[in-house]
């Protein structure tokens, strides 16, 4: 066998093109005669549309069309967009129209679209479209939205309660009634957007000769997109091809299907010309989905030694004006709260509030960072209240490896009982503490304090359901030129999907990695696909790749044995050749075998033979596989400015068997950076009228190179028994516990002032405010 790639730090196959400017992102698609779109968007959080006058805009030079809802084809002209993840717990099944009909419910909602010869001309014309709005009261804050008498986010709904549900197990009342200690927290948690560096974008082109509508979209889910476009246009999916080309980051918001994708497709059909729309960053702040506000009121009951008796509380989640992806984010949050701890009783009441803001849908972590923050803040309160070291409190409560598989007692978001498949939580925490030199921290802290510096340490643990279904498919096809074509519905926004799958297939099939050609994110390449979300691709597509490669390998052996005249047991496969292990070792290449597999015109195939040297496998996981880990952060706070500097960041990460450590480390490091943004800076602010006020990167702060230390990373590998590779998802774990660990570290740094923090992000203003209230400056002055 050639070089083994599985498990090795294989340099990415994606890189050479991207490093030389030869990537092909959606805005790089240029088609002769292509026109450019710009959307007219609501400037109001909530308003009625009285009239739209596009007369002047239509007369502008270079303008080809201005489309409003009535100009769209049926059924999309009148229908609301399909809901992607419906759930019986959703009271208000509300999704938006592709172009607003008579009511707009958030700033940035699509009202009309201008199609012109350049984006510049289209933007000029957008300014000339006159929309007569009748503003309505808007609801901005999700807690206020649930108050009686609050303005409703939609004119025709009685209230703003989109959904209410309870998660519970065990006897929570008894757990609290007899508890020696109870600790409470009210937490405000904010998360911003995905903020992929590439904004959204769509190019649509209808070819009249083949009647094929091709849509390039910066999406994580092209197959879902095709189904949506087919429904909205009333068009056969066979006549629609959706391609996710190179995509410049996803992080969740690009997993959603958007109105703009359908409208641009419709425009290309209506006008008979290719149409391109590239979102600008301001539009992205307004109209790409985000995560946003959650309010948690939670309490924990513990024994005198810190062991948990129960946790209960309530959660209010801001879903924005619509629920395109259902309520899975608060659902995931509610199911993630128990974490790695033995929790005998639990109850969380969740309310999902409609507000006049853009919808919230999963952003890297998808409700899990908030749940971990809530649980880990409680664990810190226990530690503080009982005077036990935070690491020790956690250690006393861990589910032990010998308890695996461990049934938590809930139903997870995949509809299956929440059962942790594998993991070693005590080991992960121990490794992270070692990386962080936790034992040496008290001395460091004392020395720092002597020098007038305030440093602190924070710990957070998490368990994350990854690798969700329904399935992902991979086709492996040996071609007559000897190359191996791999097609998958999995997509790539930077995760290195091509490299990872190639590693699996080259090993299992026995070909050179450079002989693999990959067709990724193209609905024409494979019949069924799902795409990237919920850290699911290594599990789903990885397993399918392994399964498909093995079937094709068996077929290669069978054909080669016949061609070489030896028993199958004597056929070895290496670097794209089948070699007999006997005689003078005759061999035959993959290309010739592919030709043989097609049979000969007029001759019957051998009994039982299927034509072609290919196989498509669709792996479907029995349930989620649970990734886990521990983050330990050492931070320094400048008490004069409220600035936080992260001194060291240690991660013990368990995502099961690792296919490529280079890539997994990159996912962890990148995820941590995202979590640092959530912990300390990123804030998508709206005013009381639901007007967004942070719509540039100057107002909405993203972590920079000086904010993100290089992580120390240890891998704990607890293989998952749920898939043939033993893998679990790795894309979100870096983000999930980061805010919890960082806020704990900041709090610890300020322990001389007795300050408690229960919110994210923790901006310098907030830190200075808290220090002021604590009298820190008075004390310093005296």
């Amino acid at each position: 066998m050639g070089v083994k790639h599985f498990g090795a730090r294989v340099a990415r196959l994606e890189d050479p093109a991207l490093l030389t400017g030869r990537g092909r992102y959606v805005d790089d698609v240029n088609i002769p005669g292509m026109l450019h779109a710009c959307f007219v968007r609501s400037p109001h959080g909530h308003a009625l549309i009285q009239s739209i006058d596009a007369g002047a805009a239509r007369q502008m030079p270079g303008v080809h069309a201005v489309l409003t809802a009535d100009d769209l084809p049926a059924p999309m002209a009148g229908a609301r967009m399909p809901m992607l993840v419906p759930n019986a717990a959703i009271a208000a099944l509300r999704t938006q129209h592709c172009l607003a009909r008579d009511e707009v419910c958030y700033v940035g909602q699509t009202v009309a679209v201008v199609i012109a010869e350049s984006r510049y001309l289209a933007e000029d014309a957008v300014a000339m479209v006159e929309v007569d709005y009748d503003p309505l009261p808007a609801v901005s804050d999700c807690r206020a939205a649930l108050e009686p008498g609050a303005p409703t986010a939609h004119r025709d709904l009685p209230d703003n309660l989109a959904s209410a549900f309870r998660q519970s197990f065990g006897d929570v009342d008894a757990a609290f009634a007899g508890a020696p200690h109870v600790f409470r927290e009210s937490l405000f948690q904010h998360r911003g957007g995905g903020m992929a560096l590439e904004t959204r974008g769509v190019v649509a082109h209808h070819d009249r000769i083949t009647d094929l509508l091709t849509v390039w979209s910066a999406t994580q889910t092209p197959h879902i997109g095709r189904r949506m476009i087919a429904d909205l246009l009333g068009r056969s999916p066979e006549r629609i091809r959706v391609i996710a080309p190179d995509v410049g980051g996803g992080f969740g918001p690009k997993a959603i299907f958007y109105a703009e994708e359908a409208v641009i497709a419709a425009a290309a059909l209506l006008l008979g010309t290719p149409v391109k729309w590239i979102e600008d960053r301001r539009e992205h702040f307004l109209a790409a989905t985000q995560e946003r506000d959650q309010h948690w009121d939670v309490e924990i009951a513990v024994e005198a030694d810190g062991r948990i008796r129960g946790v209960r509380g309530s959660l209010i989640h801001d879903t924005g004006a619509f629920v395109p992806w259902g309520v899975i984010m608060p659902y995931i949050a509610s199911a993630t709260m128990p974490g790695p701890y033995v929790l005998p009783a639990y109850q969380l009441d969740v309310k999902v509030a409609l507000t006049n803001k853009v919808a919230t849908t999963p952003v890297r972590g998808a409700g899990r960072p908030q749940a971990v923050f809530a649980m880990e803040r409680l664990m810190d309160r226990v530690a503080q209240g009982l005077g036990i070291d935070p690491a020790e409190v956690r250690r006393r409560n861990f589910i032990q490896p010998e308890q695996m598989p461990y049934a938590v007692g809930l139903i997870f978001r995949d509809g299956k009982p929440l059962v942790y498949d594998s993991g070693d939580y005590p080991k992960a925490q121990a490794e992270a503490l070692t990386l962080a030199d936790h034992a040496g921290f008290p001395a460091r802290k004392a020395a720092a304090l002597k020098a007038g510096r305030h440093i602190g340490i924070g710990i957070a643990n998490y368990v994350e359901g990854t690798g969700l279904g329904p399935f992902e498919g991979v086709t492996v096809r040996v071609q007559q030129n000897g190359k191996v074509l791999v097609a998958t519905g999995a997509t790539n926004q930077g995760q290195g999907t091509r490299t990872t799958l190639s590693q699996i297939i080259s090993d299992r099939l026995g070909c050179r990695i450079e002989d693999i050609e990959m067709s990724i994110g193209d609905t024409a390449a494979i019949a069924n696909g799902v795409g990237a979300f919920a850290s699911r691709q290594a599990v789903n597509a990885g397993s399918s790749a392994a399964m498909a490669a093995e079937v094709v390998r068996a077929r290669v052996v069978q054909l080669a044995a016949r061609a070489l005249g030896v028993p199958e047991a004597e056929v070895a496969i290496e670097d794209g050749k089948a070699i007999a292990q006997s005689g003078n070792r005759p061999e035959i290449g993959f290309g010739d075998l592919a030709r043989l597999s097609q049979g000969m015109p007029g001759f019957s195939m051998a009994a039982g033979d299927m034509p072609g040297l290919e196989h498509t496998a669709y792996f479907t996981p029995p349930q989620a596989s649970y990734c886990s880990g521990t983050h330990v952060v050492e931070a320094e706070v400048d008490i004069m400015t409220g600035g936080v500097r992260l001194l060291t960041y240690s991660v013990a990460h368990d995502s099961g068997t690792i296919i490529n450590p280079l890539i997994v480390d990159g996912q962890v490091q990148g995820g941590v950076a995202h979590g640092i943004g959530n912990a300390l800076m990123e804030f998508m602010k709206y005013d009381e009228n639901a007007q967004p006020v942070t719509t540039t990167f100057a107002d909405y702060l993203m972590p920079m190179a000086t904010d993100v230390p290089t992580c120390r990373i240890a891998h704990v590998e607890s293989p998952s028994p749920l898939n043939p590779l033993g893998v679990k998802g790795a894309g979100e774990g870096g983000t999930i516990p980061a805010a919890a660990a960082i806020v704990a570290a900041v709090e610890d740094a300020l322990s001389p002032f007795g300050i408690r923090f229960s919110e994210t992000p923790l901006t310098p203003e907030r830190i200075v405010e808290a220090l002021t209230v604590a009298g820190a400056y008075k004390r310093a002055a005296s």
Partner: protein
Amino acid sequence: MIAKRNISVEVNGALRQAEVEPRLTLADFLRHTLDLTGTHVGCEHGVCGACTVLVDGRSARSCLTFAVQVDGRAVTTIEGLGPGAGGLGVLQEAFQRHHALQCGFCTPGMLTTLTELLNDNPDPTEDEVREVITGNLCRCTGYAGIVAAALDAARRLREGEA
């Protein structure tokens, strides 16, 4: 509409002439007029750095520069950084080795910015590298690979690797 203007610009060593609207940004000129799509646009308001190119060897935000402003000057984009024919230069190779890119969208701006740094300062410290790329946002990598790649490339260049 304001009258178009003729400009001639040396782009990656080749003289390019075009008639452009005064409001056309350099980024759009490179991407859409010249079809040099390696330069990316991430914010169009001068913060993200994805659009960074070199103008007469100095880094510049092509989203905040008008094409007419580079009339008579020399512009280098990502397409002009390597040895050509799709081959990788020392910095680009280091990016691959250290996994300094994931989606690749920030990469053109990172490479141009760091090319300028390594020209100015062949032996930068880690802090200097981090400081210089504060003008370039990367949402994917958490910067660790980028910083490691820049330091590694600097060392190799000092040691005379072409």
